[in-house]
């Protein structure tokens, strides 16, 4: 399919221009995408046992949420998780998450429970997020409940809490320290989106 530009006669140019202009407007009308993004999302995880409490915080999570389709994605750099103890951070990266080999944890899924029109109104909405969570190179499906808040200025805040089992994602915990790490780790996600 070639555009034979040289064969156009000058008298057809005006028609061509009108049609092209009309076509250019079509995408603008159809794809008024309601997309929200953040680069400073906060993900924290907690492991509480009688032996030891472990808490890691990542405040540089990137996420994009498309209100039109409900698609939601986020990515967290493993080395950006901060701990109170430097040695804990070193072990987390070197021995457990192997962050040199698997630098990011990612999630790709769909958010249901709120429509594009509701997103334009102020309010709190209970939503469900379902998709694939990839940690340490292993992908597992996950479903979690969350809360979506739209404030007066149209800013969107999303929070969610769910459990992750490290062994589901191929993270080996040696028997020596097995009682130092909880079987299920509590993960709390807090994202403050801005319109893209």
């Amino acid at each position, binding site marked *: *399919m070639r555009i034979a530009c040289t064969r156009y006669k000058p008298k057809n140019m005006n028609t061509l221009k009108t049609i092209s202009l009309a076509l250019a407007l079509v995408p603008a009308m159809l794809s008024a995408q309601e997309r929200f993004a953040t680069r400073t999302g906060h993900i924290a995880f907690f492991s509480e046992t009688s032996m030891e409490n472990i808490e890691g915080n990542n405040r540089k999570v990137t996420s994009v949420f498309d209100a039109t389709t409900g698609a939601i994605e986020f990515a967290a750099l493993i*080395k950006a998780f901060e701990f109170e*103890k430097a040695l804990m951070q070193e072990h987390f990266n070197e021995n457990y998450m192997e962050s040199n080999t698997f630098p990011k944890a990612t999630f790709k899924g769909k958010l249901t429970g709120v429509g594009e029109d509701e997103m334009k109104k102020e309010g709190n909405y209970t939503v469900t997020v379902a998709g694939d969570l990839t940690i340490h190179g292993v992908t597992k499906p996950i479903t979690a409940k969350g809360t979506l808040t739209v404030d007066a200025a149209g800013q969107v805040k999303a929070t969610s809490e769910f459990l992750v089992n490290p062994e589901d994602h191929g993270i080996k915990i040696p028997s*020596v320290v097995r009682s130092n790490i909880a079987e299920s780790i509590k993960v709390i996600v807090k994202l403050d989106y801005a319109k*893209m």
Partner: protein
Amino acid sequence: MIRSAFVALSLCASPLFAQDDLLKLLGEEETGPTYATASFKSTRVINGHSLENTARGVLDFRISHRFGYVNSGVDGFWGLDDATIRLGLDYGITDRLMIGIGRSSYQKTVDGFTKYKILRQCTSGCSMPITLSFLATSSITTLQTEQLPWYDPTRTDYFTHRMAYTFQVILGRKFNENLSLQLNPGVVHRNLVGRAEEANDVIHISAAGRFKLTKRLALTTEYFYILPDQIDAKYHNSFSVGVDIETGGHVFQLQFTNSTGMFERSFITETEGQWGKGDIRYGFNISRVFTVAKPKKPKE
């Protein structure tokens, strides 16, 4: 004409279908430089210093133990009857600057040091292939005057005779997850030496390496080469081989070495043992870290 319109329409319509990889729309994040971490599991290889520092606000309590010579046979219970100890405390002032003090039972020596990381090996976001540190240590023998090995009642002894200093540049690189190597060229300055022919400033270079066998187990080795004609012929180069075992908060370093003392003047310039003759000591270092100053929590 209709063909071109068709092409234009299909091009305009494509954004409606590209819902995959929303994150790609954000573009790549600009992450700062990331430095190599955990090149060695501890701040010492075996006797000598590694290129690692204690992290900021962390206190490292170290107990080092050397038994007697293995060739002492059943009588000396293969060395286990004999023992020298060093107790030490290391502290990380910043991630690049650390200090430490210690006391050895060998010649009742008190030692102190400071180590500063001048260059850090970069894994991404910058280009620096090596880590370069500077180490300055000093030691004082606190034995009673009559107990000093060089005691001579006919000669005036000064307090400064008890002191020695070591300056080293530590050049190292973490080649991959399993292999780290370093070179430590340096000089040991001894205020008092046995004979005039011996050098007060002993120039040496050491080579050390760490080979990770599993996530928590590593093989380590180090060798101190002293440039010729500096020390008495009865002293030899220090060579050590060991294993590092890491658990939650401890690093256990188990080793075989021909050196006795655990401070630089002793193991670099006064090693009497010879591997060939079986003058090998079994020893261990235990390192236990405590977080003293917690990092500041960012406001929510």
